[in-house]
């Protein structure tokens, strides 16, 4: 399912909403999550999961082709932890 399919699906089941409003809603949800993570905030959606930012220290990596060592700078990466309820629902 893609974002546009998600929007179309929600719009078809909610005839009182304009499709373009549904589009703005879906977009603003993911925008808001992205913005929060960009600030270093955590987003917790109980039952669904939590998005957070993990810090990776700088390290010495290797070019797998040549074997030459390269230094990899420290960075921050997004991380998602599945909520307990959703995790349980996947395994019934």
């Amino acid at each position, binding site marked *: *399912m893609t974002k546009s399919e998600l929007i179309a699906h*929600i719009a078809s089941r*909610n005839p009182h909403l304009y499709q373009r*409003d549904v589009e703005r809603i879906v977009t603003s949800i993911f925008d808001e999550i*992205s913005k929060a993570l960009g600030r270093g905030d*955590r987003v917790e959606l*109980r039952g669904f999961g939590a998005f957070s930012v993990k810090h990776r220290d700088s390290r010495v990596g290797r070019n797998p082709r040549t074997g030459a060592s390269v230094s990899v700078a420290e960075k*921050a*990466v997004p991380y998602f932890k599945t909520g307990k309820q959703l995790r349980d629902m996947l395994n019934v």
Partner: protein
Amino acid sequence: MGETITRAQLSEAIYQEVGLSRNESADLLELVLGEITQALLRGETVKISSFGSFSVRQKGQRIGRNPKTGDEVPILPRKVLVFRPSQLLKARIRQGHKIAPAAPTGSNNP
């Protein structure tokens, strides 16, 4: 920075964006999460462009250990949800990370 955003702030964002009531905004957020959940339970991958994709991965059985007692216990085959962030989301976070701790040098960043 370091705050936790919950459903309340996300539905507030919807409320600000579209002319729905606060109640409806909260319901819509729930609906979106519900649709994503249903698709994942059907085994579908959910791709949100410029954000990332959620997919369900089947894990095989393996032998684990109880770290306290050292007993071997089988970890049963199970399904796990994996989120793969998009390049854009990763870039956005890397960017935010740079600005935060390196504030004294950054005169060009508003």
